[in-house]
C-alpha cells in the first residue's frame, strides 16, 4: 500500500508541479497515507469482528459452573451454541489466512519451485477446507439453548461464569418482567435496546457479518463472471468482442436497482440468493474494464513476443496478460464492495433484504421506527454511521489505489 501510494509522487513532480509550500507537501505526505491506513485498519477491524462475532456478542458465557443434582458441573455453553454457519465462516476465514500466508512464505523461494509449491499447497489448503466444511455441515447439528444464564447466576444456581464482552445475543430479548423496549443507552445496554428489547450494539456487530459476507461473496461472483467475459472479449476481439459488448450493453441498460428488484421478486430473498443476485447483476463494469485493459495489452511488445515465440494460448492469457490486466479491475472491486454493502442495507431497509431475525444495518434503521411519527434516533444513529464509515472506507481505499496505479489522475 505504502509503495503504491508513494509511486505517483515521483511521476507527478515531472508534470507541471503546482506551487506548493513546504507545509502543504509535508501535510499531504503525512495525511493521505494516514487516512488510507485508517480506512484499511477500519475494514480489517470490521472483518475480524464479522468473523469472530459469536465470541464477542452473545448471551452465552464462555464457561460456567452449575449446581446440579450431581454436584458442581462445568459447562461451555458458548462453544456448544456455535452453529454450522459459524464453523463454516471460521473455516473460510482460516483458509484465506492460510492462503495469504502460503503466498507470503513462498515469495523468497526460487521461481520454478515456487510455482509448484504454491499450486500444491493452495490446492491442499482448499481441498482440506472443503472436506472439513462438508464434514461440519453433515455432522454438526445446531442446538437451541434457551437457558437464561444471567438468571441462573442471579438465583445462585450457578457460580463463577465468564461472559462475552457484550453479553447479549442478537435475538436475545430482555425477560418479560422488565420493561426494556426502546431504551436509551445505559450501562446495561451500551447503545440501548430496540423495539423488541434486543441489544442494539450486539445486533450492530452481528450485522457486520451480513454486510461483509454479502459484499465479499457477491463481488467474488461478479469478479469471476466479469473476468471471464472481459478476458474473452479482450483477447479474441472481433465477433466475440462485438457480441459480448452487446450483452454487456443490454444488461447495463436495465437500471441496476430495478434489475435487482426483479431478481428478488422472482427468486426470493434468502441471504445466499441476495449474494448471487448482487453478483449476477454487478459483473458488467469489471468485464468492461478488463476488456479495455486486454485490448491495450494485446498490442504491447511482450505479448506479441510471447505469441511469436509460440507460447500456448493458456500461457499467454494467464501468465502474461491476466496478471498485468487485473490490477485496475481489482481496484474497482473496492468500489463494487462499497456498492454491494449499500445495496444490501437498502434492500433490508425496504424490508426485502435478509429476513428479520438476522440483523442488518439497513434493517436496524428501519426498526428505529417510522421517522415521521415515532423516531428513536438513538437506534438509527449507530447502524447508519457504521454503514457510512464502511462504505466511505471502501471508497477511499479504492480512490487511493486508483490514484496510485494511474499517475495521470493524481493531482
Amino acid at each position: 500500500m505504502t509503495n503504491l501510494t508513494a509511486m505517483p509522487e515521483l511521476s507527478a513532480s515531472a508534470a507541471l508541479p503546482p506551487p506548493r509550500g513546504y507545509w502543504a507537501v509535508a501535510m499531504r505526505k503525512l495525511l493521505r497515507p494516514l487516512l488510507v491506513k485508517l480506512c484499511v485498519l477500519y475494514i480489517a477491524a470490521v472483518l475480524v469482528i464479522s468473523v469472530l462475532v459469536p465470541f464477542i456478542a452473545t448471551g452465552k458465557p464462555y464457561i460456567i459452573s452449575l449446581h446440579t443434582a450431581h454436584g458442581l458441573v462445568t459447562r461451555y455453553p458458548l462453544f456448544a451454541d456455535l452453529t454450522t454457519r459459524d464453523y463454516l465462516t471460521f473455516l473460510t476465514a482460516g483458509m484465506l489466512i492460510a492462503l495469504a500466508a502460503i503466498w507470503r512464505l513462498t515469495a523468497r523461494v526460487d521461481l520454478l519451485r515456487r510455482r509448484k509449491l504454491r499450486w500444491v499447497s493452495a490446492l491442499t489448503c482448499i481441498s482440506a477446507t472443503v472436506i472439513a466444511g462438508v464434514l461440519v455441515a453433515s455432522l454438526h447439528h445446531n442446538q437451541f439453548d434457551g437457558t437464561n444464564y444471567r438468571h441462573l447466576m442471579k438465583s445462585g444456581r450457578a457460580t463463577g461464569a465468564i461472559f462475552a464482552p457484550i453479553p447479549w445475543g442478537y435475538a436475545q430479548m430482555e425477560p418479560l418482567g422488565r420493561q426494556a423496549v426502546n431504551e436509551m443507552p445505559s450501562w446495561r445496554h451500551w447503545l440501548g435496546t430496540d423495539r423488541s428489547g434486543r441489544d442494539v450494539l450486539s445486533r450492530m456487530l452481528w450485522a457486520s457479518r451480513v454486510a461483509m459476507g454479502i459484499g465479499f461473496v457477491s463481488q467474488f461472483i461478479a469478479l469471476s463472471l466479469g473476468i471471464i467475459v472481459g478476458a474473452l472479449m479482450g483477447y479474441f476481439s472481433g465477433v466475440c468482442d462485438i457480441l459480448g459488448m452487446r450483452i454487456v450493453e443490454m444488461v447495463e441498460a436495465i437500471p441496476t436497482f430495478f434489475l435487482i428488484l426483479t431478481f428478488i421478486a422472482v427468486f426470493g430473498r434468502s441471504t445466499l440468493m441476495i449474494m448471487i443476485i448482487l453478483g449476477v447483476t454487478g459483473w458488467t463494469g469489471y468485464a468492461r474494464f478488463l476488456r479495455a485493459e486486454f485490448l491495450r495489452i494485446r498490442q504491447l511488445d511482450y505479448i506479441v513476443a510471447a505469441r511469436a515465440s509460440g507460447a500456448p494460448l493458456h500461457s499467454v492469457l494467464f501468465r502474461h496478460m491476466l496478471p498485468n490486466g487485473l490490477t485496475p479491475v481489482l481496484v474497482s472491486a473496492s468500489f463494487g464492495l462499497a456498492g454491494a454493502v449499500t445495496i444490501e442495507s437498502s434492500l433490508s431497509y425496504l424490508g426485502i433484504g435478509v429476513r428479520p431475525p438476522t440483523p442488518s444495518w439497513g434493517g436496524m434503521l428501519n426498526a428505529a421506527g417510522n421517522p415521521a411519527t415515532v423516531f428513536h434516533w438513538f437506534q438509527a444513529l449507530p447502524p447508519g454511521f457504521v454503514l457510512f464509515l464502511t462504505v466511505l472506507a471502501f471508497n477511499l481505499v479504492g480512490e487511493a489505489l486508483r490514484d496510485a496505479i494511474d499517475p495521470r489522475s493524481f493531482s
Partner: protein
Amino acid sequence: MLSYIIRRILLMFPTLIGMTFIIFAIVRMAPGLTTSGGMYTAGMLQSHQSQLAQQRFMARRLHLITRNGKPIPIAIQYVRWINRIIHGDLGTSIEFSEPVTKLVLQRLPVTLTINLISMVIIYLIAVPGGVLAAIYRGRLVDRIFGLGSLVLYSLPIIWVGSMLLGFLANPSFLNVFPSAGLHSTNTSKMSYFQFVFDYAWHITLPVLCLSYGGFAYLAKQVRGSYIDNLQQDFTRTARAKGLPPSTVLLRHVTQNSMLPMITIVGMTLPGLLGGSVIVEQIFSIQGMGRLMFEATYARDLPVIQSLALVTSAITLVSYLMVDIAYHMVDPRVTYD
C-alpha cells in the same frame, strides 16, 4: 447528421430486443409459472382472505398461460408478450387489479420530474465545483471538494433520508417539512404560486436525498477534463496571445471540456431512477420507484417486468440523446 441519427437508432434495436429477452427470461424463471396446477387448493380456503390469496397466487401462475389451462411454448409466450407491448398493453396488475399501462402513466411523470430536478441541481453544483477544483488543483479547495464529494457519495441514502425525516419532519423534533406526499391536501384552493411553492416545499427533502450523492463522479470527470485541457497547446497559445483568463477558460477550455459533461447525463439517469425507489419509499411519494417496490413486495410479476422494461427504455433513450448531443458537439465522434 441525419444519417448518423438514423444509424444510431437502428443500432438501438438489437439492444432493445436483447433487453426484452433478458427481462422475459428472468421473469419466466419464477418457480411455478410454467406449469399449471395448484398447491394452494387443499385446506387453505377457510377465510375470505385466504381465498383472495389463492386467487392471486393462481393469477400469478397463470397470467401468461392460455385460457384452456394448457401451457404454451415459451417462444410463443415471448412473441405474444412483445406483440402486446407493441400494442401498448403491458398486462394487468395482480396487486392493484388495474392495467399496468395506466399505473405507469400515472406514476412516471412524478418520478421523472423529481429526477430531472435533481439532475439539474447536481449539474449546478458539481460543474462549478469541478472547474474550481481544476483551477486550484492540489490546493486546499481541490482537496476539500474532492474529499467532501466522496464523503457525500458514501453517505447512504437510507440513513440520510430517515435522519432528515426524523429530525426535520417530526412533531417531536422540528416539524419544518412535510413528511409524505407531493402536495398538501387543500391544493384546489391555492393560487398558482402557492401551488408551486407548496410543491417545492414538499420535494425539498426528496430532491436533496437524490442529488447529494451525485456530485462526486461528475465533479471528478469535469475536473479531469478541465485539467487535461488546461495543459493543451491551444490553451497556452490563447494565454500567450494575452487573452484574459476568463475568456481562455470560458471559450477555449470549457467548449472542449463539454464532452464528459454530456456523457454523464446518460449515466446519471439510471442511477437516479434506482435511487428513487428508496427515496420515494422513505418520503411516501407515489412514483414509479414506489410502485416497483410495492410490486416486488407483492411479487406482482406483470408490473415488475413492465417497469423493468419502461426504465430500461428510458435509459436507452437517454443514451441515444447523449450520443446525438455528442455528435452535435463533436462531429468527429462516431459510434464504434
